[in-house]
């Protein structure tokens, strides 16, 4: 395998690990509410933006910034749930989807008004010193980002699959009425899910902030994480993670070997192809149709 190919795959996996965190945020809300949160990308951007302002403009210390951002954005997630989901819980799904898109637009244009055009990079959390592993060169920063991302996915997986709270969340996603009947506070669980999803998005925003310009429309990244989740299977958490990693690699391969300007178009092409050929994703289970 050529060095360039291997290098491309490795950096694709780094990118994919960030997508995985974003995808988890999408999927957990989808599983609980069947809603696709179109504001997810803007929540991600908000995480990066608050972090940037807090650290570089207010002068807040580096690592504490992360915690403050996660909590602040989790609260934003709650707010989104209260404004765009809860009042519309009994409306058609398409209405809720539009409402989340509206919230996304409000966040995006709001940030644009407040932050005008002060674009900048978030200082990297690890050094840019390269590490050479065989034919592959990777910076400490990329390695660290990937490690944190993998750690977050693992923690999230444990929370969801190995704790009582996680069981309550899964129960609520599968059948809210039954969950309510066995004594689960469904409203609280739903709020928690939205907050958690937002915190995941914020974490992804902070992780990617040193790599891309922090600007109001950086939320587009979330679209790709979404494609990753579709690729892996939207109704399966492990599927979403694997799909995101896969997409990161595909995107990098396309960018390096085919076309950089159109790699996003190729990504959407993949999305439509997957939806047409195998709507339940590569790893997902087909969903039963009810009559």
């Amino acid at each position: 395998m050529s060095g360039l190919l291997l290098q491309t795959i490795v950096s694709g996996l780094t990118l994919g690990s960030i997508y995985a965190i974003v995808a988890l945020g999408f999927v957990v809300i989808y599983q609980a509410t069947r809603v696709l949160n179109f504001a997810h990308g803007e929540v991600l951007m908000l995480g990066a933006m608050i972090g940037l302002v807090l650290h570089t403009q207010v002068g807040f210390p580096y690592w504490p910034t992360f915690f403050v951002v996660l909590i602040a954005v989790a609260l934003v997630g709650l707010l989104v749930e209260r404004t765009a989901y809860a009042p519309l819980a009994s409306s058609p799904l398409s209405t809720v989807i539009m409402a989340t898109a509206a919230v996304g637009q409000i966040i995006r244009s709001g940030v644009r008004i407040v932050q005008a055009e002060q674009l900048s990079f978030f200082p990297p959390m690890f050094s840019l010193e390269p590490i050479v592993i065989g034919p592959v060169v990777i910076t400490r920063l990329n390695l660290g980002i990937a490690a944190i991302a993998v750690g977050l996915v693992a923690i999230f997986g444990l929370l969801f699959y190995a704790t009582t709270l996680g069981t309550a969340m899964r129960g609520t996603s599968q059948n809210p009425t039954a969950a309510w009947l066995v004594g689960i506070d469904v409203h609280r669980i739903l709020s928690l899910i939205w907050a958690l999803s937002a915190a995941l998005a914020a974490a992804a925003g902070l992780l990617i902030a040193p790599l891309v310009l922090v600007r109001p429309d950086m939320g587009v990244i979330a679209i790709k994480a979404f494609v990753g989740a579709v690729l892996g299977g939207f109704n399966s958490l492990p599927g979403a993670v694997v799909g995101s990693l896969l997409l990161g690699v595909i995107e990098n391969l396309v960018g390096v070997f085919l076309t950089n300007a159109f790699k996003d178009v190729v990504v959407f092409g993949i999305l439509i192809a997957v939806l047409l050929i195998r709507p339940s994703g590569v790893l997902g289970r087909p969903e039963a149709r009810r009559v």
Partner: protein
Amino acid sequence: MTGPAAARLALLLTLGALLLAPLWLPPYHHYVLTLILLNVITVVGLALVMGFTGLVSLGHAGFVAIGAYATVLLTRAGLSYWMALPAGVLLSGCIGYLIGLPALRLQPLYLATVTWGFGQSVWLIALNWVSLTNGQNGLKMAAPALAGRPLAPEDLYWPVLAVAVGGLLAAYRVTKTRPGRALMALRESEVAAMTLGVSARAYKTLAFALSAIYAGSAGGLYVGVVRYINPDNFPFHVSLLYVTMAVVGGMGSLAGAVVGATMLTGLPELLRGFVEYRELIGGVLLLAFLVFVPHGLVGIFGPRIRASHRVPMPPQAAGVPAPSGPVASGDGRSPGPGTAARAEWLRITEVTKTFGGVVALDQVSLVVAPHTIHGLIGPNGSGKTTLFNVVTRLEEPDGGAITLGEHDLLSCPADRLAALGIARTFQNLEVFPRLTVLENVLVGMHARLPVTMTSAVLGTPASRRAEAEARAEALRWLAFVGFQGDPAVPVGTLPFARQRAIELARALAVRPRLLLLDEPSAGLTFGEVEELARVIRRIRDELGTTVILVAHTMRLVFGLCETVTVLDHGIKIAEGSPLEVRRHPEVIRAYLGPSELPATASGGAT
């Protein structure tokens, strides 16, 4: 002056004002009016997809962009504007058709995403394919010429106005006739629409193609006005703005599309200087309307508008059911190929259906004689509804064969059965709640009404006549089931028993030779069950229709049916005349449980 007349006058006055607008409007306002009309075109198209069909599109700016770019590029390649414009519209329509394809099997979530990804892709291509689109710098276009004379931008007002008015008229005609009802039926209950012969595939893709034609026209006309184009015209928030216009005006209504497009195009243009706040205001408006005014500005006046279009019931509807059923009138009974007079047996042979590990139907065989009422009973979960779903092709059996006469039903998709003369009702009632009573029944005639999308848009005399006859027939079906009331109210507002009656009328409107009734008596009062029994008997005797009846009301089953089949846990345990079945030991055991409990269980099977 009352409703329709006043509405007609208002429309004429508006049209007059629009025709005279260039004479009295200052140039800038005239330009804004042109933009309003362009957005009206796009949003009317969007309303066809979102409001009427219930599919979300978050990428309509992509269709506008395709129309616009195609028009510019073709004129730059030497074509005249008047040739390039239709070509661009056609291209947009074709791509809309392709984008509509995934709509067939996808949940709203995925469809929203596909359209979103599509809009984003068009924008990215416009931005990055520099050799074609000149990227961010955009493309200029020569002024469209007419008879060799280049036109001023304000001259384009006329074609824009013509397309807007024509587009509205076409959309109005579609929504008031067979194709529009099919779209709305799919929105309300796809399953029920399919059993009535509406092809989800054909209509959803058609809706998207039509919608893209509207958007593409707006795009092509827009470049005719401004003669310049760049990707900034089509980012995601523009798609969302179209959605906002549809929602603010009122989804599911053409008037809403007009109101929404007018308000949200006009206001921002007049409130200049707040450019950076426009997106924010748009987002807030969209959210606020979705939450607080879900039916939009037009919806506020909705009930009054509806009340003014009352349809009087024919006189025979009052009191007793019509003496002359729908059969006596019209062209006799010719539901699809063959006539009902022909004795066609339904043969279900060794049909098996499993869900995961559960065997819902285990080698069930059943023969139903023509012109009979065949009862199907069994405890809950015995497989009755599954059998109905398998026969009506909503569930694919794991094995077995089903034939009606010489037709192999298993080789027919669900939406072809109506044409073969098979209709059903649903245990959980699948009416189209937001459609009127009359429209519900009219959807039942979908498979045999000769009104296509084209003939509806053109308003051909034949299609008008067919529609008028269908309305008359629908009223007769309503009378047949004993419906008394206003056929112009939405079905969702009526009490349960009436909704059941309307669902039955809708199934009868198929003119079925085989009718499957899934617990038609559930939730009805004693008197209503009596009335139902009378109607079912008339369906067999007067219409010659074969009926399969699932019911828990034993009085109904044993009183009506020639033959009764009993299912238990997916297995046929008994079959015969009501008397035989009632005494069958297996049946007693299935209903009353093991024999230890004979005393407490007596009379339980009612």
